[in-house]
């Protein structure tokens, strides 16, 4: 297997391209700064607000007038079971992502690499399932899941989430696999690889960016799902984080617990982003090293 080298996966362009001088570099950093501010400014507002006291939560000062951990204390108050809820979200989102990827890779491989009729119709049917408005799915599914005893189970949350995740995975991965040259696999097979090995060692690593991106997007999407999780589960032991947030309370029925909601938003978002960044490095490295072995 020595003659086959996959086209280098470009993680970064060559340094030479930055030759244009400092003017362009400055311009680029200005652009980066704009992007960072654009993305983070609202998040900053959430962060600052989470450190305000509930009394002055509507202040417009750029830093809290009085710093307070009141909101965080409320989030992690034992009665909210927020820790459990985070764990549940992790379970649901991970399984959804894993299933969507496995099914998506299978399907995408078939569509992109195998010869059989009606490919377009199959893709059309797959994507058609993402066309039904989410809010209209709830009552029929509740009826169905009550009848088959799925209320208060993880699968009642995982399976509906797949209706977004699978079409995305199938479509996106099909595009990726389509773009990779056939000769790669062929050559691998000439070298004695089985079809499976050719798939695992050549094709999959090359599609890694696509697989990984699909994973991030479906993970976050299912992590943020609310209405299905709320309707299918009423046992606090398996409720997810978004549902737990909706049950935070203010001092009265009218007083939304803004501080706690913002704090929970921060608590949910930051570990997620860090985790994704760590995983990204690991997974991309793992897959690409497999390719050159």
């Amino acid at each position, binding site marked *: 297997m020595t003659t086959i080298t996959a086209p280098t996966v470009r993680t970064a362009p060559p340094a030479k391209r930055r030759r244009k001088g400092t003017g362009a570099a400055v311009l680029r950093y200005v652009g980066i700064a704009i992007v960072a501010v654009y993305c983070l400014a609202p998040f900053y507002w959430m962060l600052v607000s989470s450190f305000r006291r509930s*009394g002055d939560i509507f202040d417009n000062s750029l830093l809290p007038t009085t710093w307070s951990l009141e909101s965080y204390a409320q989030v992690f108050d034992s009665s909210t079971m927020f820790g459990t809820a985070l764990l549940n979200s992790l379970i649901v989102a991970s399984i959804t992502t894993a299933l969507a990827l496995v099914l998506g890779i299978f399907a995408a491989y078939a569509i992109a690499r195998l010869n059989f009729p009606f490919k377009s119709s199959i893709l059309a049917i797959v994507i058609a399932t993402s066309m039904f408005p989410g809010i209209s799915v709830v009552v029929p599914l*509740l009826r*169905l899941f*009550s009848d*088959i005893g799925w209320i208060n189970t993880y699968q009642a949350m995982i399976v509906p989430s797949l209706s977004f995740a699978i079409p995305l995975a199938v479509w996106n991965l099909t595009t990726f696999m389509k773009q990779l040259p056939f000769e790669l696999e062929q050559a691998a097979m000439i070298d004695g690889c089985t079809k499976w090995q050719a798939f695992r060692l050549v094709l999959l690593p090359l599609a890694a960016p696509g697989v990984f991106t699909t994973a991030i997007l479906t993970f976050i999407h299912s992590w943020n799902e609310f209405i299905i999780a709320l*309707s299918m589960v009423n046992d606090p032991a398996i409720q997810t984080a978004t549902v737990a947030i909706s049950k935070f309370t203010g001092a009265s029925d009218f*007083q*939304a617990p803004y501080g706690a909601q913002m704090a929970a938003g921060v608590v949910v978002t930051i570990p997620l982003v860090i985790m994704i960044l760590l995983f990204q490095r690991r997974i991309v490295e793992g897959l690409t090293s497999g390719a050159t072995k």
Partner: protein
Amino acid sequence: MKQRRHDRRTVAGIAMMATAAIALSACSGSTTPPAESGGSGTELEGRGPIQYVSSPDASGAAQQSIDEWNEANPDEQVEWVELPLDADQQRQQMVQNAQVKGETYSVLNLDVVWTSEFAANRWITELPEDAFPLDEHIPATVEAASYRDVLYGAPYYTDGALLYSRSDLLTAAGVAEAPQTWDEMQAACDAVLALPEAEGMSCYAGQFDKNEGLTVNFSEAVGSAGGSLFDDEGKPTVDTPEALTALNFLVDGFESGMIPKNAITFQEEQGRQAFQDGNLVFLRNWPYVYASFSATDGTSGVEGKFGVSAIPGESGPGVSTIGGRNLAISAFAENKATALDFITFFTSEEQEEKRLELSSRAPVFSSFFTDEAATEKLPYLPTLLESLENAQPRPRVVAYGETTAAIQDEIYAALTGEKSPEDALADLQDALTEITSD
């Protein structure tokens, strides 16, 4: 015409063809005999564990009552199913459960305005009146728990409108008493706003965003002008001089600047914030804001500078609507006898008194409102009682959702100047007539 009595067999049949692999058999066979419909006056039977389905309660007071019950009744445990804080989402969950005739919900904590809808759809069962000391309750709360003179809920806690005023500024301007009429309120504002320290302030605000709060504020204005939204027979009466006076009070208020422009985006919390920041002389709000205004940690700009009174009206004290919650038994519940016992226990005077230590929700027993210990903790109680004795329920119609939506559509259009008040009321009369006619 083919009639279909909520029979799911056909749906199931179609679905079975498509998803042959899925066992849907449970869909067509009935797992329980059809649930006893509410209102038939049948015995409430069955004992065992039940679920209490309710909005969350941050104070821990409700949890305390439940714990006490569970300790005393090991065989009839109550499990609290917490719903989201948002009332619309609570209703949606309960309606969904009724759609699938779910047995998991036993006792429902219902907003007073949902009572008619749930009763008329037979989602909740009739309650025996002799199980509750109803004559010790504030009459308006019992009325709000009944549908067509039949009791469907046990009053749990109540709510009414209060007028908050900046007593410091009123004193400075030489206004001795809180206003009882709209004209007096305007006059008081004129005096206060002339003061240098009142620069930049506005006179009055309530809740005017397109939301339940707008229905509340409009129906209070109509009541305060001597009218009502529906007559005793349930026919809409909004195309009347009284309703026009009421709507004009609000529309003119926005036009003259008595009500600040941004109040069109106010729900309860935005108004609280504006008053607390010292931007308003008067505010119509619920009792809950009292605690925020009295906060001594520096977050309240009006601590010690405000007073409460009953809301003003056209020619005398105004008419409040009534808010609050009732407990009811789901028609599809299994252990209804236990559910009834639990409700009786939970809403008893003894439990209300215990909860008062932790919670600031207003009790439904009249005796508390003059009770020394209670009024010390919640100083607004006497004023609230005054407000509640004069209160009118919001429209008690079955299609409450459509009714409140129609009110919000038309009144919001009038407040934003999209329609003249006359047109808005005429259109509202038509819309309400259509909603209630069938």
